[in-house]
């Protein structure tokens, strides 16, 4: 949020990649693509390319991390060294450690944690290419991977960012909009429960702008939720075909 330019929205009201303010980037999801994980999903959202995999439920190692009355979710959000402009060191940055935490906390509310006491599941997210709003795309993919793994859940979690650039409230920020815009609000939603499980904000917004931005992000979440269901359905159908 360090600089302001006046070029993120053109005279026609369109964004750098030709999108309208309330338009999502093209999204592609694939489910169940990794053979060793219990569940997995791949998402492309604009130039974001992200893999999520779920292992478990399984016994916790080390054992003292297990809880007597519920499962434990661990989550690692990690970026490939070549995913960003300047090569990123593979050791986890402070940003990656924070995002791992907030992503985990955005997934936990939907899981029936008490079904598998003393066990744990691992959610691994690898950002192969990053182009803004990677935490939202990661949550979207991870939630689908959890469903693919058969983790008992109340709901999916769909995530989308909204924000403000050039005095316009926009949906699904890409990298340039995140860096040069004036606010970024990533949101995650359990669509059937009106439950916001991730909310962060960077930038400056009035109370009114904030309300608008959140509303737009929630609309984005609902659209993404529809795609999640579609991706799972496709997977289910194709698995069934293979089995028959």
């Amino acid at each position, binding site marked *: *949020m*360090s*600089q302001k330019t006046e070029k993120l929205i053109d005279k026609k009201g369109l964004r750098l990649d030709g999108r309208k303010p309330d338009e999502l980037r093209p999204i592609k999801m694939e489910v169940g693509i990794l053979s060793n994980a219990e569940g997995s999903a791949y998402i492309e959202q604009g130039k974001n390319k992200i893999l999520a995999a779920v292992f478990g439920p399984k016994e916790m190692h080390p054992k003292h991390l297990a809880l007597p009355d519920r499962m434990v979710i661990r989550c690692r959000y990690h970026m490939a060294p070549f995913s960003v402009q300047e090569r990123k060191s593979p050791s986890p940055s*402070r*940003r990656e*450690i*924070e995002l*791992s*935490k*907030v992503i*985990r*906390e955005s997934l*936990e*509310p939907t899981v029936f944690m008490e079904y598998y006491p003393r066990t744990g599941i691992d959610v691994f997210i690898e950002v192969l290419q990053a182009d803004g709003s990677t935490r939202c795309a990661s949550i979207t993919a991870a939630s689908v991977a959890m469903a693919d793994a058969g983790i008992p859940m109340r709901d999916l979690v769909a995530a989308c960012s909204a924000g403000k650039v050039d005095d316009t409230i926009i949906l699904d920020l890409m990298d340039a909009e995140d860096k040069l815009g004036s606010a970024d*609000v990533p949101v995650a939603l*359990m669509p059937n*429960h*009106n*439950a*916001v*499980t*991730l*909310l*962060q*904000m*960077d*930038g*400056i*917004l*009035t*109370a009114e702008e*904030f*309300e608008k931005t*959140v*509303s737009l992000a*929630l609309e984005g979440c609902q659209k993404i939720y529809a795609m999640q269901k579609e991706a799972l359905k496709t997977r289910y159908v194709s698995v069934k075909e293979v089995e028959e």
Partner: protein
Amino acid sequence: MSSVITRVKQKQIAQAIAKGKRLDGRDLADYREIKIEQGIIERAEGSARILLGKTEVLVGTKIELGEPFPDTPNEGVLTVNAELVPLASSTFEPGPPDENSIELARIVDRGIRESKAIDTEKLCIEPGKKVFVIFVDVYVLNHDGNLIDASALAAVAALLNTKMPNYEIKEGEVKLKPGYTPLPMRKRPITVTFAKISDKLVVDAWLEEEQVMDARLSMAIDDDGNICAIQKGGSGYFTVQEILDAAKMAREKSEEIRKKLKW
């Protein structure tokens, strides 16, 4: 482990809050007593100690010469670090920062950075080459809940108390001169954190309340009432209405607290 409370106590806390009451007699929207002391560490360029009830946070700032980031060649550098030192709680372990101290540091950092509280362009000495680097070290000395608000407040109080060395450029080299200038501050962002307990929003949760809460929501508000940073934490959720209510209340509480800050 004196910090883990019994299920009975947890139930009492939750039931009281369900009725709009708190075990220590506060209203849901009340902070504990806030004490602010500035300038207590003479060795630091700036410092402040905050007492929020029994929660105690010390922040010290140091200023060093360094290089700007390539994408902001005209701006000084802000670095926030938080240490959950083990004398503050039996649940804090010595060792490198864990996810909790990293998240705390990054929340404090964002409140200052996104509100543009410091006029970082005034920290530039030679564009692209030499700038002042400000280290804000958050030191939690006693953990009795709501470390986020205490730390954010202590950081701003320490920055308001921070003196910047004078300097001159002689033959291409930066020399520090005697005397100091106050750090160029523009804003005093205040962070207000809500705990969700029994479907109510509670401000300034103390340690035992935090053990009962479903989730927390922190909002940094600048001097003009704008929101400049948000962080949801915990494994629960918020409804949209709760979020909007929180935004409104954060604005009110931040104004109250900001008045306590000497500038």
